[in-house]
């Protein structure tokens, strides 16, 4: 029987002899993740269940990142629930501010998630880890509570769709543009209940940061997971971590429900216009869209290579008068690296804010809420109505180069014009 990489990982974790798309399975999880929004509910469900001890304290990860550093009393109390539970259960993978980061950048960086893993997270962008060649999928709090009890989850095996990218990418075009283009082509439900497998020569040339950006947004097309087969770059990324990776590859005759093949040679930076990630247009086609805020960071584009791209454009420049530039590196390690490389100084000298890691601005939590009528360009992943604050605000999604260029000119700008 021929399998895709996703099916192989699910088969291995199900303990069954075979599996097929559409089938319900019970699978053992390697990592169960939750944050300060989803963990409190998971913990209360777990406690109500009558079970006392989690199935394996080493497989549970708790990251207060959404409203952390705590934005108000209620969120402080939510964060404290995680800290208390971690202490009570002896969970070492609890990351307090000062050693934390946005979960989906933090876990790969720490070697907590590995190729071949089945990772469940009470956060929809858990699909990010598919870039390592893992099956990683977002679930709810009750799913997590169940995983705390017996280390398992129920899954309906998804069919896979293959996306092949050919050609050569232009300067200023990266993983974010590929995934925005893809969502623009197939729509926000174009991969509903499916696995998106990204492949082709363009993917092989992408660095890990770009691959994480792509897989991160698989959920924006409705997918259960987004995967990239491991290669030398993956192996290099995970080398040196304590946990050992398992590399899976799709069989040549594996079944795909559909295959998309695109030559992306002439692709230019893509921008998703309000209010859906599928409302995608080439950056140069957007004329005279004035912005009030530029947000560079998040689990999608808050990694060191993203900050380098933004800083290269902003170096020696000033943010346009009236524009608020907010840069938030995804983890403490990235933050420190940005300081060492002088990137933080570039952002501050340009008139921007360089923030501690947090999910805050992306979901309209804190650290940069949009007012009525305000327009933002953001390297984040969602531009739903009211996502970053006022229901009367507007969010455009782009790569870090477009966001940096737009901060300089004050309107949405192709980075080649800087």
């Amino acid at each position: 029987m021929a399998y895709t990489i996703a099916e192989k990982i699910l088969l291995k974790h199900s303990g069954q002899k075979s599996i097929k798309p559409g089938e319900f399975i019970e699978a053992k999880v390697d990592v169960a993740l939750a944050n300060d929004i989803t963990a409190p509910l998971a913990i209360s469900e777990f406690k109500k269940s009558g079970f006392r001890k989690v199935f394996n304290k080493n497989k549970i990860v708790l990251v207060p990142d959404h409203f952390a550093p705590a934005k108000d009393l209620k969120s402080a109390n939510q964060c404290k629930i995680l800290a208390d539970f971690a202490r009570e259960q002896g969970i070492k993978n609890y990351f307090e501010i000062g050693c934390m980061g946005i979960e989906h950048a933090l876990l790969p960086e720490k070697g907590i998630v590995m190729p071949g893993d089945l990772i469940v997270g009470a956060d929809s962008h858990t699909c990010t880890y598919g870039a390592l060649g893992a099956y990683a999928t977002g679930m709810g709090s009750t799913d997590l509570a169940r995983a705390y009890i017996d280390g398992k989850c129920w899954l309906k095996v998804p069919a896979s769709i293959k996306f092949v990218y050919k050609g050569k990418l232009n300067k200023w075009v990266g993983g974010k543009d590929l995934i925005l283009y893809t969502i623009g082509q197939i729509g926000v439900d174009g991969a509903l209940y499916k696995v998106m497998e990204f492949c082709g020569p363009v993917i092989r040339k992408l660095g890990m940061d770009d691959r994480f950006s792509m897989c991160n947004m698989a959920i924006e097309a409705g997918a259960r997971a987004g995967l990239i087969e491991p290669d030398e770059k993956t192996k290099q990324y995970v080398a040196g971590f304590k946990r050992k990776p398992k590399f899976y590859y799709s069989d040549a005759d594996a079944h795909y429900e559909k295959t998309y093949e695109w030559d992306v040679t002439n692709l230019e930076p893509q921008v998703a216009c309000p209010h859906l990630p599928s409302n995608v247009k080439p950056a140069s086609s957007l004329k005279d869209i004035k912005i009030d805020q530029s947000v560079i960071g998040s689990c999608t584009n808050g990694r060191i290579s993203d900050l380098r791209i933004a800083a290269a454009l902003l170096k020696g420049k000033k943010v346009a008068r009236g524009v608020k530039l907010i840069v938030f590196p995804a983890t403490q390690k990235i933050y420190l690296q940005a300081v060492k490389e002088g990137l933080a100084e570039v952002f501050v000298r340009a008139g921007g804010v360089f923030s501690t890691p947090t999910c805050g601005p992306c979901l309209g939590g804190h650290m940069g809420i949009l007012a009525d009528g305000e327009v933002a360009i953001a390297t984040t992943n969602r531009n739903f109505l009211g996502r970053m604050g006022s229901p009367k605000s507007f969010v455009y999604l782009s790569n870090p180069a477009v966001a940096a260029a737009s901060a300089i000119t004050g309107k949405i700008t192709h980075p080649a014009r800087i």
Partner: protein
Amino acid sequence: MVLKGKVHKFSDDINTDDIIAAKYLVSTDAQELGKHCMETIKPDFSQAVSPGDIIVAGNNFGCGSSREHAPLAIKGCGVSAVIAKSFAAIFFRNAINIGLPFLESEDVDKINNGDIIEIDLATGVINNITQNKQFKTQAFPEFLQQIVECGGLINYIKRQSAK
């Protein structure tokens, strides 16, 4: 289980930020969340709902975040069930896990805002009382029915582990 209520219609791609905005995620209380359900797109929604009412929507209902607060908010404001052409995958499993009944149906376009409908979860039959019409949808897969019958995932696991 048979549920009866007035229909509140919604379009395609209703996302979890529409259902419950992130600023309210500092609570896990269904009643509290329910007060702000759909606030961004229909500010008076929670006041307009009478206990038992039913949401009828288009494709990809519940897309976006994994927040279980979304089905909790729907339940908390008094809605008894959701019917949509399709559901986003995480919302789908969250609804099952917390015991919010729902049905997938291609016939939602034949239901109007304000209609009184009755749905039978066991058979998948939707009875539009206002229009005197009946539609049949697919019943739940057996595995999922078991979870719903147990009153949610945690009870299901408790029952399994007691066996």
